[in-house]
Structure formats: C-alpha cells, structure tokens
C-alpha cells in the first residue's frame, strides 16, 4: 500500500515560512500532481516526503509507516523509505555507465547477481534504452539521461515514485513523448506517483488528481484535471491553468456591465451575483464565440495572428482586450477569416464569476 498521508506539516527556513499546516492524501495507485508557481513550496513538500528535509511540525506517513514526526524531529532516513525519486536535473551519476546507474539500487539491496542482471536489463528495455547500457551519461541526450533516472528509480520496484519536475529541462517534443511514457509506465506497473511541476499542461495530461498550490504554500483546490480546468474554485486556479480573459464588471439593474456600459456577452440566463459589488468575469479564449458583425455584442478585431492550424484574434470589448482562437480552416471555409480592424460580434459559451478584490493576491 503506497498511500501518502501528510498531516499539518509546517516547514520554515530561517524566518521564512514555506509550508504552514499543510495536509494532503495521495491514494494508492494514483498519479497525483502538485502544481504551483516556482517557489511555492511544492518541491519542499516532495523533499519532506522523500526524507531529505525534516518537518518542523506535523507528521508524514507512507503506507502504514510513520516516516517523519515534526514534534520529535525524528525521521526515517531516505534510504530506508523504499522510494523511487527522479530529479529535475536527472542526477544520473556521471562516473557510472547506464547499466551501473540502474544496477546500483539492486546492489545495495544485495540482489543475487543473476536476478540483478535480469532485472536491470528488463528495466533498460522498459524505458527504451536497449543497446545503450554501456554508455556513460555524458554520451547520452537529455531525454536519454532522464530515462536512465527513471529506470534507476523504478528498478527496485518501489510502490511510490516521486518526480520533481522531471521533464522541464527537455524540449517540447521530448517532453510530450516522455509524458506519455510516464503515464504508460504508471498504468502498467501500478506504482503510485507524486509529481511536482509548474507546467499545467503536463499536470493535466498525466494526473488522476491535481493539487494547485499558491505562492504561500496553500493548496487551493484538489480535483481531477477536468474539474480543475472547467470548475476552478477561485481566480488563482483559473489563471494558473492557461490563457485567460478577465473582464472588470459591475452589476447594475440586473445586468452585468463593463466600465463603459457594454453588456457582458453572456448568452445564457445564469444567475447574477450581488448587485453593486465589483466582479471579475473570467473565461478562456475557447469560450469566446466569434460572430459576424451584427450578431452578439458588437466588437472589433484589434490584432489577427495567423498561426497555422489556429488563428488568434485580439478583440476590443468595451475598451478591454480579450483574446480568442479559431480553427483556421473551418473559419476560412465557413465565413472567411477576419482581418485587423474588421467589426465582429462576440458571444460567450461559459463564464466564471470571481470577486474582484481577489486579483491583488492572485
């Protein structure tokens, strides 16, 4: 059973509080991603779970075992926790070749020679490093080095794998490829994964559940990727998950209005929040429906950027700028593409209401 139970954990460095009263449960067999901006303390939490740091308060359990207790400042050493850890900078040992790197955990566990060889080679094949066993890390690409690190973390068959931004030093194509492979390995091996990253795309792609952490180390929302993306609990989460449009809105006479009196192009009769207060209306570029002039709320094209499959528009809505993207070919074939300066209309598929004062701390 590889569950992680973090209870009321606090951690300070000098006077700086990094984590305060943080609790979190990772379920057996799931891929849980901790997503947050850099410096938010997510890596510290991973290091606490790995045993490289000692919590000031609170407890951490892995499975049945209590591994760290802040009140007594006692921990189980990282080498006795039976984890796999993969680091952002790969941390493959430069003086050992691929085979020796992967074999090291088994050597420490005193696995008999025959079995050791078989398990190392199995893992080499599993992560796609066949025929590279004799290479030194300096002779490998970044992606291959990360595979070595992954293999090394997996070879002793840990029930729990901790991944600290393992893909962020790779280029976009490789990142995408490795993302699929990590997901596939997790499914095939049934290992529990705690994945730490600031890249929301990776988090959405590989996670069963995502936890969003803000700069202060507070977890704002824990939910499935779709839930997080479609139903963010606050503006921080909403902004963190991708490109956004945010409009300043006031409610007046049962209508949502922009500063200059333009109505928010909200097509459905949803419930409006309280009259008189200031609100933010948030929506994704993909929530914007670009309509021919005369339909919806009137608007105009400020910028048009043809990007290939997609064409991106910046639109003027009551003096505020909003962005949307359309599928180039569909638009071209249906109604023709808009040019800069063209008038157009706007409708919205979905919006989120956020209290306006929250913007400052987000």
């Amino acid at each position, binding site marked *: 059973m590889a569950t992680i139970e973090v209870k009321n954990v606090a951690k300070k460095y000098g006077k700086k509080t990094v984590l305060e009263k943080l609790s979190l449960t990772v379920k057996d067999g799931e891929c849980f991603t901790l997503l947050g901006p850099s410096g938010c303390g997510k890596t510290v939490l991973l290091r606490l779970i790995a045993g490289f740091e000692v919590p000031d308060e609170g407890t951490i359990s892995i499975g049945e075992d209590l591994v760290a207790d802040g009140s007594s400042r006692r921990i189980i050493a990282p080498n006795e926790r039976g984890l796999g850890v993969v680091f952002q900078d790969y*941390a493959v040992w430069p003086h050992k070749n691929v085979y020796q790197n992967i074999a090291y955990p088994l050597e420490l566990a005193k696995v008999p020679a025959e079995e050791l060889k078989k398990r190392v080679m199995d893992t080499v094949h599993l992560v796609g490093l066949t025929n590279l066993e004799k290479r030194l890390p300096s002779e490998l690409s970044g992606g291959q080095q990360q595979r070595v690190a992954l293999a090394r973390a997996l070879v002793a068959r840990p029930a729990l794998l901790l991944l600290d931004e393992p893909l962020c030093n790779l280029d976009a194509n490789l990142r995408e490829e490795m993302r699929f492979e990590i997901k596939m390995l997790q499914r095939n091996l049934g290992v529990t994964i705690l994945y730490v990253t600031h890249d929301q795309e990776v988090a959405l792609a590989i996670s069963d559940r995502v936890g969003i952490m803000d700069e202060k180390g507070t977890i704002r929302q824990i939910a499935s990727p779709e839930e997080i993306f479609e139903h963010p609990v606050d503006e921080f989460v909403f902004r963190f998950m991708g490109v956004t449009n945010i409009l300043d809105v006031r409610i007046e006479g049962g209508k949502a209005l922009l500063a200059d009196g333009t109505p928010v192009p909200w097509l459905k009769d949803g419930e409006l929040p309280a009259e008189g207060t200031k609100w933010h209306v948030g929506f994704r570029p993909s929530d914007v429906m670009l309509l021919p002039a005369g339909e919806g709320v009137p608007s105009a094209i400020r910028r048009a950027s043809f990007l290939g499959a997609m064409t991106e528009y910046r639109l003027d809505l009551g003096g505020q700028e909003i962005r949307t993207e359309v599928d180039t070919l569909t638009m071209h074939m249906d109604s023709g593409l808009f040019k800069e300066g063209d008038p157009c209309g706007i409708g919205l598929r979905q919006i989120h209401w956020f209290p306006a004062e929250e913007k400052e701390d987000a």
Partner: protein
Amino acid sequence: MPVMKRRSFGVPEMLLFLSVAILVIVVAVPVLLILYTSFFVDGHFNAGQVMSILSEPDIYEALLNSLFIASGTCIMSTFIGTLFAWLVVRTDLPYKGFMKTLFLVPFMLPSFIGAIAWKMLLSPRSGYINILLMDLFNLEEPVFDIYGYGGIMAIETMYLFPFVFIQVCGALERMDPTLEESARISGASLLTITRKITLPLMAPSIMSGALLIVLYSMAHFGTVAVLGMENGIFNIPVLIYEKIHQSAGSFDSIRAGTVMAAVLIVSAAFIIWLQNKVLSRGRYQIIAGKSFRPMEVKLRGLRIPLFIFCLAYIGFTIVLPTVTIFLVGGLSTYGVDITWENLSLDNYKFILFEWDLTRDAIWNSVSLGLGAAVITMFAGVMISYVIVKMQVRGKGILEFLGMLPFSVPGSVIALGVILAWSGKFGINLYNTVWIILVSYIARYMAFSLKANSAALEQVHDSLVEAARACGAGMGQALKDIVLPLVRPGMFAAFFLIFLPAMRELTVSIMLYAPTTRTIGVAIYTLNEDGETVLSAALAGIALIIIVTGQSVIKYFQNRKAG
C-alpha cells in the same frame, strides 16, 4: 519497520570543529601572533611603536621598493598579458593554440631560477650577452645592467604576466561575439570596436589579473633577493628575511619583521577585497548561448612580424634562460667559455650522487612536498566538503577562515610559524624539518581548498540524494558517489601542491637549518656563495622534476578529457 532516528547525530558538528581547528592552528594562529606581536608591547596596545618602526629608514625604503617594483611589474605584465591574450584569441596569428600553451609555460617555472639565469646572461661584468655585445661592437661599457629596478621588474614580469594572460584569454573566449557584431553593424570599425566595446568589457578581468600581480610581486622574495643585493635594492620579504637571519632571533628584529609582515597582511587583504569588488561590480553578463565564430581581426601585413615577435619573446624568456641554466650547470667553473670541451655531466653526477648537501636538499624537498601535498589534500577535501556541502550552524566562521590562506603571503606564514612553533605553546619545532612542513601546509591550503571546492561544487546535491533514495546510507553515498567524483579534484590538488613545493624558496629560506635545506634554499645559497655552476646544475635538476610532473598532469588531464 525501520527505526526512526533523530537526524542530527553530531557528525557534521564534529567535522566542522575539526576543520575550524586545522585552519585555526595552521593559519589563523600564526597570523594573529604576527598582528599581536606587532601591535602589542608587553601586553599593551602600542601603535606609536609601530609607527616608529615603520619610519626606520631601511624599513621605509623596503616599503617603497615593494610598492614601486609591484607597480612597475603590474603595468608591464598587464600590457604584455593583454596584448598576447588578444593576439592568440582574437586575431589570425599562426599556430594560436600552440602559442597559447607556450605563453602559459612561465607559470610552472620558478622565477628565482630565472633570475639566476638572467644574472648569468646580463650581469654587467660577466653576463654572456653583455660580453658578446661588447666583443661584437668593441664597446667599453656593458649594454645591460640586470641589477636594477628595471631588471627586477622585467624578470618578475616574465614570470607573472600569465596571471593577466589567462584571465583575459578566458574572458575573451567566453564573450558573446554578437556584442561585437552588433557594434559592427551599427557602423563601428574594428579599431573602434576594440576601443569602445571589447576593452571596456574586458576591464574587470584585466583589473583582476593586474591586482593578483601586485599581490604576488609585493610578497615576492626570490627575484629581488637574487638581483637586488648588488645595488642594495630590497623589498619587504627580503628585509624580513635579513632581519630574522642576521640577528639570530633577537626580539627587536622579530618585532620589526612582524610589523612589516602586518603591512603585507593588510595590503593583501585590501587587494583581495578590491579584486572581489572589481569582479562583482564588473561581472557583466556577457556570456551567451548561440556561439558563432568570434570575429577574427585580420593582422594582414603585421601577421608574420607579430608571429616572429611572439616567437622571439618565448625564445628570450623561456628557452634562453633554461638553456643557460643547463649549460652553466655543465661547466667546470663559472666564467670559462661555453664550448664542448668545457661541458660535462660531472656537476650533475656530483650533486645527485656524491654531495650530501644537495642530496639532502632533494630528499628534503621531495619528502616535504609529498607530505604537505598528502596532508593538505585530505584536509582540503574535508574543509571544502563542510564549506560547500554541509548545513551546520557556525559554518560562517569556517568560510571566513577558508578565505585566509588565499591572502597570506609566504614570508608572513614563515614568520608566523616561527612565532607559533618556537616553544611558545610548548612545542618547539624550530630548526627541524617539521616547521617547514607546517608552513607548507599553511601556504598551500589555499590551492587545495580551491581545487577541492571546485570539484565538490560539480557534485550536485541531487546526485547524493538520488543515491539515498536508492537505498544508500550517508556513508555509502559518500563512498560510492562523492569520492569517485572528487577524485580528480584531489588529484589536481596533490600536484598543485607537490610541484610548487619542489621549488619553494620564500618560506623555506626563513626556516631552514643546516640539515633541512630544500632544493630552493640550496640553489639560492649555493648561488650566493659563488658556487654558480653547482647552483645551476641543481636548478637544472629542479626544472626536470617540475616539467616531468607537469607533463604527468597534462597526460592524465588529457586522457580524462579525451
């Protein structure tokens, strides 16, 4: 289930304590004793005494000389170093790579041996070049006189300019070529670019090299001792040596020595502080990713003349003195013509196999070098590990102490060691080989700290943490991961200490006893006693040992890189 442990079990604290203790005993105590002895009389602070000592004519003159020689050497070295660096990095000079290696050779040659060689070539009465020129042109007067400020500065420049050369080469190589290209596309000619862009950007590196040269020159003993005596030119280290040596340990001369040493300590600290300031203020972010070939200045008509100039410089400063040493070492007596009949290997045989004085000297230097290198290498690994890798309270003290060895000149160390180890604390090592060993350790600790810290900084924490996560305990991870990775750094530290120790003069000259001469001391004293040919022969053997050692390092480094 594994047992929960408290994390702090005292090992880090113990290592910290041990490291602090080593640095305190070896470096801090001697330095503090010097400062104490110079400022306190009978336990009372007395600055007036210091001023009156400093205003004694010979001490005042030594101070001025040190400053004057250091400034001259610094200006000449900076000019030559920058020029050669620019030539080998930024022009189409032929055989640039090879030339670069040649310009670094003076780094490994001991300057006092160079001074002895130049004395043979350019002394007014008997210098070979002077005689040759006088014969050729029927001159009454010698053309050159090496025994003056100019001669001393010229010789020091020959051996110290690589400090500027290597700094500027590195900075030029790392500089983003588009900084210059963007000036070019803005309409600037190559000359304007060099003046307005390249040189200003290089200024911090040039300055930092120049300051290093001032530091070394002020504390430099050999060249001034060899060439200055004739005309009564001496600098601080030479005067310290004479005071201590002639007055056989009288308190007044020791006090005068400590005051001068205190001046050196203060100047060194100031220079190091200034250098850090220059480097941190001027550390422009001029290093960039996309590397295209840097602009190469076409020397056109000057290409061959400049190439010949470089070759001539190398010929004159490296080849000529070296050949002179070996040839003079083969003569039966100094002064006879250098002809085949007059040359033999007799002197070399004599000093290697027959004469106790030189055999002892070689044996002393080799054993002292090995001992100091091994001890300092291990101590350096431990101290660097605490500084670079460990999170312990009180590390700040160690970091400060770790800076000390970099800024303490050799003659200061020697004097401090005399104060500390002559029975004051119940241990008297004076006149034994051990006092030299202690001073070598203090002197070369800086090299070891530098090499080992650099190696340890390459070992990212995550490499150790990865091993821990794989199931290795801390000790196991140190053994399997850290040690193999810092081994090259330790190896480098060993040779960085062993080779300079083989030719050490400044410290040993103040500490030797009749049976504890080192190679450097033997060469120097033989030369002083007029045993010129034997001194040259011993110098030749020292050069062979040093060059062989350097070649061994190069071989291993290349093998590792290849």
